[in-house]
């Protein structure tokens, strides 16, 4: 604090947020104090330059809608993955792992992973991470259809029966 004016009060005054009483006190002091007047002018000039630089940076870094959309999609995707990774039901996780182990020797490891992802994508779950006990049945139906198209009806029946959750029919 110098001459009874704190740093916070200077900042508020320069930003135009100071109360009427504080503004009056500072202005009354500035009339008679050359040192504070020069300090005020320096700060005021620096603040104006900062504001101008901010405006210039904002103009230069404008994001297009497409870029903004891509960034937001990435953020939401990460949020969804992080949010769901820890919450996948252990039974669902176990069943998915088991289905992969049934699919892989027949269709190949990579094709098995793709089949699970495609079935999830085309089911109400929309993604493998979002498969739950509630949307398991439609997911399994999609997977059965994929298995039938790839390896025939017997294999599709195997996938269907192996994929049934415990306690369901």
């Amino acid at each position, binding site marked *: 604090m110098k001459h009874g004016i704190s740093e916070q009060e200077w900042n508020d005054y320069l930003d135009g947020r100071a109360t009427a009483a504080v503004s009056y006190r500072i202005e009354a002091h500035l009339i008679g104090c050359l040192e504070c007047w020069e300090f005020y002018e320096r700060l005021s000039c620096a603040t104006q330059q900062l504001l101008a630089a901010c405006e210039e940076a904002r103009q230069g870094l404008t994001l297009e809608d497409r870029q903004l959309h891509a960034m937001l999609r990435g953020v939401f995707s990460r949020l969804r993955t992080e949010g769901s990774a820890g919450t996948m039901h252990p039974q669902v996780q176990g069943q998915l792992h088991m289905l992969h182990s049934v699919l892989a020797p027949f269709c190949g490891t*990579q094709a098995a992973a793709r089949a699970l992802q495609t079935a999830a994508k085309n089911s109400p779950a929309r993604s493998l991470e979002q498969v739950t006990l509630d949307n398991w049945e439609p997911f399994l139906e999609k997977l059965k259809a994929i298995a039938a*198209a790839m*390896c025939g009806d017997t294999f599709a029946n195997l996938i269907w029966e192996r994929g049934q959750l415990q306690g369901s029919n």
Partner: protein
Amino acid sequence: MLAARITPKVVAYGLAAELALLVGLYLPAAFGWSSRFRLTEAIVMTIAGVLAFGFALVLSLEVAAEYRQAPWARLAWLLLAANAGLSLVKRGVGSPLFDFVREGYRTGPLRGLLDNLLVVPANLCLLAGLLAMWWGFHRIGLGFRVERRDRAAMALIAALFLTLLLYRENLSQGQSPYVLSRMLQPLGLALLGVISAFGLVLHRYAVQMGDGQLARVMRWLMFYVLLRGVLVFSRGLLSPQLPLLLDSSSDLDEWALDLLWQVVHWALAMATAYRAQLTVSAAAQLKQLRATKAEIVPV
């Protein structure tokens, strides 16, 4: 279910037995200990060829019956069965045995006509079958893709066959008295070129699938498709003095070519046997699963 009996192992034994017999029959003549056992060789080749395509035909039909819910895959295997059936008949009418009934039959125009009448529809069925199989996989949406370098290689193979067709004027049926034979032979060769190029799609799909029984089926189909193309093409390059696609088993080169053609026959049988075995394995696992469930929850 025949698939349970005609396993890949049985087909492999068939191939190995035929090759062993043919080598065993050829070697004494090659070392000058005896004359060629041409009749016996012809009998072995004919029986083995008919057996291999017979296996492929019945197994393909069984596999097609497995795809009740997948019309494109069903169509693909029905067309492969048709290809096997036509190839079986072709193997029959092109048998070296006829040479012993009618002299010069194998190199004559009648055999050429019969050959081409069967080759063109057989190749058409094979191409349509492969296309149906590709479309069936594509529709599932698993994201299998043919890469740019594959397309370039496919274009190269097709271009090589086109070049062969354009620069080889003396196709074996070029002087045939049958107009149909003269027209069908280049068509059959062009189809073979397209099919060989398409073999690369099968290769790419097999790679993208990873390991597994289905990838093995694709690889054997690719081998069947490509080996045919390679044999015809190499014959055109290595024996430019001989008319393309004319049978002659006079020397070692031609004997080796005959041997490799026999491998082609078994390659299709092997592909279908592996595919049929997939169903057998799935059925066994399903049976075991149901038995386990029945034990846990007695009805």
